[in-house]
């Protein structure tokens, strides 16, 4: 169970949110450009300190400025896929995926097996030895995803993970995420701009606007006048 209440002053507005994600649940975080989605994930991951609030995962407090608590990033065991992917340019696809496993002292047999599985599932088969800087945009995105999942995180967060994926990959990856979250029984947050994604993968949707909650609920209940569904032409 993830319980988050965060407050942080940004350049144009104050981010002020509170929400929970149940184990096995997938929260889809939506909102227009610059509404604070990436910032929210960065705070959860510990990359940014909130001004106030409290972040608790499975009973452990990750962050509470008032009590001066802040668990180091590396101890949070959060799988986080950045918006810009940030694949390590000097490592091969294989080593990128193995990175977190090595950091968690996995046995070499375990690493071998995990990496092989993920490379196959992600359709990166031919690229396993290729240096990551030589990948196409979509290939990088898949590596970043595989890398985050590999560490068997206790919370999975992805910032627009499907934006550069082709249709087939998008489908495969969605299936993979659903299965993974379900089997590991962990909370998951996905940032996306596509309403279709909510329906396909989300069990709850949180829409934010200028850092504040605009709407929260089940995908099927999403109102048509919601900022992220509204479309000037009327076409969805």
């Amino acid at each position: 169970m993830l319980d988050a209440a965060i407050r942080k002053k940004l350049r144009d507005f104050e981010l002020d949110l509170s929400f929970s994600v149940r184990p096995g649940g997938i929260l889809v975080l939506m909102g227009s450009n610059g509404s604070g989605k990436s910032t929210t994930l960065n705070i959860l991951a510990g990359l940014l300190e909130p001004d106030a609030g409290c972040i608790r995962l499975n009973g452990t407090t990750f962050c509470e400025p008032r009590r001066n608590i802040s668990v180091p990033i590396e101890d949070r065991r959060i799988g986080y896929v950045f918006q810009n992917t940030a694949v390590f340019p000097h490592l091969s696809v294989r080593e990128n995926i193995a990175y977190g496993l090595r950091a968690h002292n996995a046995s070499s047999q375990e690493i071998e097996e995990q990496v092989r599985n993920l490379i196959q599932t992600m359709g990166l088969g031919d690229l396993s030895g290729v240096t990551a800087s030589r990948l196409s945009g979509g290939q990088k995105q898949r590596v970043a995803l595989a890398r985050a999942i590999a560490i068997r995180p206790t919370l999975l967060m992805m910032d627009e993970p499907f934006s550069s994926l082709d249709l087939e990959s998008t489908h495969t990856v969605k299936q993979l995420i659903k299965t993974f979250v379900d089997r590991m029984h962990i909370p998951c947050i996905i940032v996306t701009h596509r309403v279709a994604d909510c329906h396909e993968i989300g069990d709850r949707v949180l829409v934010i606007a200028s850092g504040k909650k605009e709407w929260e609920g089940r995908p099927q209940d999403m109102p048509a006048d919601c900022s992220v569904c509204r479309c000037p032409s009327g076409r969805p």
Partner: protein
Amino acid sequence: MKPPSLIPEKYRRLFLYTGAIVLVLSVTLYLALPIAALFFRTTPELFWASLSDPLVISALWLSLTTSAISLLVVILVGTPFAYVHSRSAYPGKVLVDTLIDLPLVLPPAVAGFALLVLYGRMGLLGQYFRMLGIPIAFTTLAVIMAQIFVASPFYLRQAKSLFEQFDRSYEHTARTLGASPLRTFLTITLPLTAGGLVSGAVMTFGRALGEFGATIMFAGNLPGVTQTMPLAVYVGMESNFNLGLTISILLVIISFLIMIAVRILTKTEVPHA
């Protein structure tokens, strides 16, 4: 849109190429010719003779070992220092930044003099070291201290600016994947900045190897103890030009070999993001 025509383009290229070639040639020649000229002034016999001179050998050995030790100290202390410095904000940071630069502009003789005033027998700290029976000035330790003082800024500056400009999202990703700050540093930051750090290390080693003014002031010029190659060359050259010359050529050759070794060792291409 201006219609791109072909002939001017051809001439433009020619012009650009010629300019580029002239530029590269002139810089290369300016740096290479004086060194080449050295080779014209010696004979193989003289060269072999100087190679068997025990003073030359001991100076060479002293230079290489002290420079290597200095470099090691600078890398081991300087790398974490530069990292901490560039990653944290603390009071007086600007002052520290400026201090790092100061030894750069200080004439080496003044640097040596300053070290003497501090660590010399009569020095502010030196007198206490003396009471403890630890002489500093005019020992091999002084050679190393002088080299570190004058050469470390080259490494520190380089490391600082590399770490400052490094794309933090790589580090952040590594941390979320469970890597400790140390591990992140070793597996992500270090490999991706390695090229620049090696460049800084080469500058530092070179500066230490060529150090003269601070050494003669603070460590003296005692064969086997503090007489490094540059000092030997200087003294040698004053009395016997050809000897100084051949020692210099020896140094050039060794430097060349070291540079090439560094180049080969760091060949592992670090691609850009």
